[in-house]
């Protein structure tokens, strides 16, 4: 494998077949993607691979992988991802999760506190504050997403729809199938309210934890960053200007800088 060149490979974990995006060189880093999924061409993945040996497993149902009926609840998601760590024989990699991936990463760190000592949560899901209800992404039409996800919705929208042709019925069908499979799977932990009791377990996290948040995040707003920061002992919250929920592509350098604090 060439340095920084992301490759897709598949292997068997105990519950499901895994599609893993892997590349780069440097310290081992496990990256867990958000509900929007992850592709080989993802610019954030490429940026990570310049400094780290990145392992980015796709949740079953994402990308081209098959959905997995046996993964139903939060514990299933968490153990499945810990199984991947074991299958890859990784010893205490840096664990980074974005949004839904951050929720899973935080659960892993709470369930297996002795196995995870460096944790970066990028605007993770997993908490619920009545005074700051999180918009319902499951009832949001694709064209409404850029406004929720980006500091600069126009640029973000262009990025999201690059190469997409919704007037082509074949493209549309493929899009609908992928959307149903991916968000269907994500819904198991995010629908109807993206909270599965994490707040009661965060006291168990022992990892050095960095929280990264876009100041313009309209999906999971800054008060959630503050709530995570309060709940995880010794954590640090880094607020990044001119970044929305897709901070990983809007302010990639700032996110990498934050992860760098863990090494």
């Amino acid at each position: 494998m060439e340095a920084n060149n992301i490759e897709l490979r598949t292997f068997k974990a105990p519950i499901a077949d895994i599609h893993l995006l892997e590349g780069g060189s440097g310290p081992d880093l496990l990256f867990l993607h958000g509900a929007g999924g992850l592709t080989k061409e993802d610019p954030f993945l490429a940026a990570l691979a310049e400094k780290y040996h990145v392992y980015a497993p796709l949740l079953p149902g994402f990308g081209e992988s098959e959905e997995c009926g046996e993964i139903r609840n939060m514990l299933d998601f968490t153990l499945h991802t810990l199984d991947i760590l074991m299958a890859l024989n990784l010893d205490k990699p840096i664990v980074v999760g974005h949004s839904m991936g951050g929720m899973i990463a935080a659960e892993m760190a709470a369930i297996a506190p002795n196995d995870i000592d460096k944790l970066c949560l990028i605007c993770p899901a997993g908490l619920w504050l009545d005074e700051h209800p999180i918009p319902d992404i499951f009832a949001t039409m694709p064209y409404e997403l850029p406004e929720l996800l980006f500091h600069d919705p126009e640029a973000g929208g262009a990025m999201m729809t690059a190469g997409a042709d919704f007037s082509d019925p074949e493209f549309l069908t493929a899009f609908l199938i992928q959307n149903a499979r991916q968000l269907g799977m994500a819904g198991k932990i995010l629908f109807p309210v993206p909270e599965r009791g994490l707040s009661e377990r965060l006291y168990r996290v022992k990892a050095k934890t960095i929280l990264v948040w876009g100041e313009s995040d309209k999906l999971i707003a800054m008060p959630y960053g503050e709530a995570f920061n309060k709940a995880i002992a010794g954590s640090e919250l880094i607020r990044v200007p001119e970044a929305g929920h897709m901070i990983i592509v809007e302010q990639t350098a700032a996110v990498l800088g934050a992860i760098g604090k863990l090494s």
Partner: protein
Amino acid sequence: MKFTWFNLMPWPHLPDDFRQKNKSVWVDIDSTLYDPVKGHDVYNDYLDMLEYADNLGYDGLGINEHHQNAYGLMPSPNIMAAAISRRALNSAIVVLGNSLGLYNPPTRVAEEFAMLDVITGGRLVAGFPVGSSMDINYCYGDIPALSRERYQEAHDLIKKAWAEPKPFAWNGRYTKLRYVNTWPKPIQNPPPIHVPGGGSVETYDFCLDNTYSYSYLSFSGYIRAKLLMQGYWDRLTERNEPDESPYRAGFAQTICVAETDAEAERLYKDHVSYFFNRCLHVAPGFADAPGYRTIKTIKSGALSQFAPDLGEAAHMPWKQLVDEGYIIAGSPATVREKMEDLIKGLRVGNIFCLMHIGDMPMEKTKHSTKLFAEQVIPHLRNMWPEYEDDNRFWIEPLNKRATPGSISERKATGEA
């Protein structure tokens, strides 16, 4: 043929600019549009109409379940069924149905359906829908990708609760009960079961595996339904089922009858428009939660073929709605002819007659209901003579049934 009089029970007081000023009739509709005092009359009118249809000899009275919407005011179908069960004394009570996954524990369905069947002397037709995505996912929070599994488990539990004579333990994934011991049990055990479906092969098979009647509750009419129903009959042939009884299937159709075709348009046009414009104004984001449909169903193309946009008919003129079969409307002769096309074309023995539509007032509803009962049904009654003995999908009531209210009457006349 079996004809069930069916009313969705829409809220009839939505403002004229409802569609323009509101995002959705379902899920997050502005609840200040509901007025409980007006609602008192609305419910009582609708229940009166069901009883009126019973008196006219309709075979069944249809009731269904929907939540948080102005499209249908029956969040609890079993309450509505109970409300008519002691006044409508002849027809089947067709509850289409209870969304099985929403009842916790699902033995609640076994109990309430049994109660209804016992109260009515064996007149319950039990509907087992999964439920619309708006209802089960967005209103009731059921996780879309798990809805089918939860439904299947609930189904198995309910059937066993009716069948088992002794208490048993149920160690399900979604329900755990140490003592399942349903009291009372239904008279018809099990009652005839109808399952609403939307074109997935899984639901075809589920009905065929269990000898349930497959119901297609569409609003786009019998012409557009042909492909879907043909899929069902093709599946039946593929599986070499022992018979192709039309009672294995049912279809819902909006029907408006008047003295003449022109009179039908004059009388009913505005109410039909109310329905398609206001009652079906569902925000697209609520129509289909990701994970609600199986990947297999989406891949089969069933969505584009069978689930047209609910709003597609909103701006269709009357003639187009009639020509394309969204509604069957006109004189008794016109309606009869089109109903024959429907019945033969879709090969169905059960018709769910949507005789009240939108904000139709009761006098007009009675008019259409009566004309259909007296001048249309008699001509359609024996369209499937070779299957007239097929009772698998319809009620078998007790011959000798109690007379509701008899105690008060006895007291009044001084009898013991």
